[in-house]
């Protein structure tokens, strides 16, 4: 077993999930079964292979450049409302479970 009940609790904590006792039990079983299968990646020697985070740095980019310079096509001037107008406050708050006229409302964070 790779993952222990303690790991499940720790990871749930990181992920902001609570999980019921039942959920924790099945999570323990499922994660172990999936990670067992994933272990086959260790059959491959990848010591000299660079990681690939995305596809986009291969196409439409400036091949002569390095790093973020390659994506020159995606640059634009940093101007206020450069791509579109910001949402009106009322619209931005419309989907909030709790809000007043100006702000999202959440349970109190700071004790005084």
């Amino acid at each position: 077993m790779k993952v222990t009940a303690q790991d499940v609790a720790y990871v749930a904590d990181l992920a902001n999930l609570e999980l019921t006792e039942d959920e924790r039990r099945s999570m323990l079983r499922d994660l172990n079964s999936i990670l067992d299968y994933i272990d086959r990646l260790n059959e491959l020697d990848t010591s000299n292979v660079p990681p690939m985070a995305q596809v986009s740095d291969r196409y439409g980019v400036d091949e002569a450049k390095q790093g973020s310079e390659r994506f020159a096509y995606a640059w634009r001037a940093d101007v206020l409302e450069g791509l579109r107008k910001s949402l009106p406050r009322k619209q931005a708050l419309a989907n909030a479970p709790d809000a007043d006229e100006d702000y999202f409302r959440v349970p109190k964070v700071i004790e005084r």
Partner: protein
Amino acid sequence: MDPVSLTIDGARSAVQERKTTCAALAEAHYERIQKEDGQIGAFLTLSRDRAMQQADRVDRMVAEGKPLPPLAGVPVGIKDVMSTRGVRTTAGSKILEKYVPPYDCTAVARLEAAGAVVLGKMNCDEFAMGSSNENSGYGPVRNPRDLTRVPGGSSGGSAAAVAADMAVFTLGSDTGGSIRQPASFCGVVGLMPTYGRVSRYGLIAFASSLDHIGPLAKTVKDAAIVLKTIAGRDPMDPTSADVPVPDYVAELDKPIRGLKLGIANEYFGEGLDEEVRAAVEKAIDKLKGLGCEIVPVSLPHTPYAIPTYYLIATAEASSNLARYDGVRYSHRALGVTTLPEMYRRSRDEGFGPEVKRRIMLGTYALSAGYYDAYYLKAQKVRTLLTRDFDSAFAKVDAIVTPTSPSAAFRLGEKSNDPLSMYLADIYTVTADLAGIPGISVPCGETREKLPIGLQILGKHFDEATILRIAHAFEQAA
């Protein structure tokens, strides 16, 4: 004329020649939905007001004799992971049950600008995570060909609606096979374009380096028309590529004689259903008969694609789904007194079991001490998988495979075993990881009359070639 059996061109010319109106076409589809969808479950939300306003707009253009745009009056369905202004968008999740986006997804806006009529939003696996549509927070979709079977996933509603003539075409999204596999299960055409070909702006993120938007349609030509409409650079999505969009429809009728088609043993191994194998081999013979040259290629890292995919996709998902915190737009649990309790209980109540499983796996793979062993390792194997395709495409114009190892399975058959469900994506995840385009086109049926799909994979930004091959195959069938 049967108004619900039309293709895009059929619908558009019927409107242009005034055999019907856009309003009547939309109405006929709503009647069809009313009659059929109770047992299928493809639609989550109908956007009748928006549809009828758009239909009226196009009908006025017809009345005024104005030139009609390419999708004039064509009724479409949109997978519920794409934002639609003023129309509820749930991503198949209870956590977004009441979410009404304030803006439109670029792909949807481009369809409407081209005259399409959005009928409503399609059911899907929660946050597009699944291969059977059984992970929807709003109940499963059933396969129109056999109601005891799944339509595939995650774009199950999108595929089922096209198969049951409830929409002329639909948009789906594909992160590990979610357009092509349901297209194959439901007997329709499904196209995943190259990564960056279609803007992801307004697509609710699952795994950002793997997510693609694409069409599900009745014919290859329809898929080509839709791609032409939605493709191209969008400043709102910095990963949308600055690569010219060809006229895919004009390319369709170019001959396929002399094209080199790669066949990889790795896609015909253990686990492939015998009836699927026979149908795909027959399809390959037919392509050979049409003048294509069959060339063996090797994609040796294919057996590592599923573990690679399930690490990268879940890692990205665990980060993307952190935004559902009960503050700005998602479900909030009642009776909570502290902020951490609010986050946890809201997420516990809002997310379904598969989404929680993937968030947990992704968080684990990214956590201190495991990052190198899992996430980084997967990114390196992603390089190897991409190199496999690079060397194969140095020799061939396209690669032909089965879309899925089996035809549609039964509801409940795999839902208790996540790993066996993941393996249903074995022939599709590779293209998502490498960012290459793929299309699934129907290539026959099993003895039980279940559709089988042929997958054609192409070079980056070479959708034109795979569409052309799929079109020639479809016309010869």
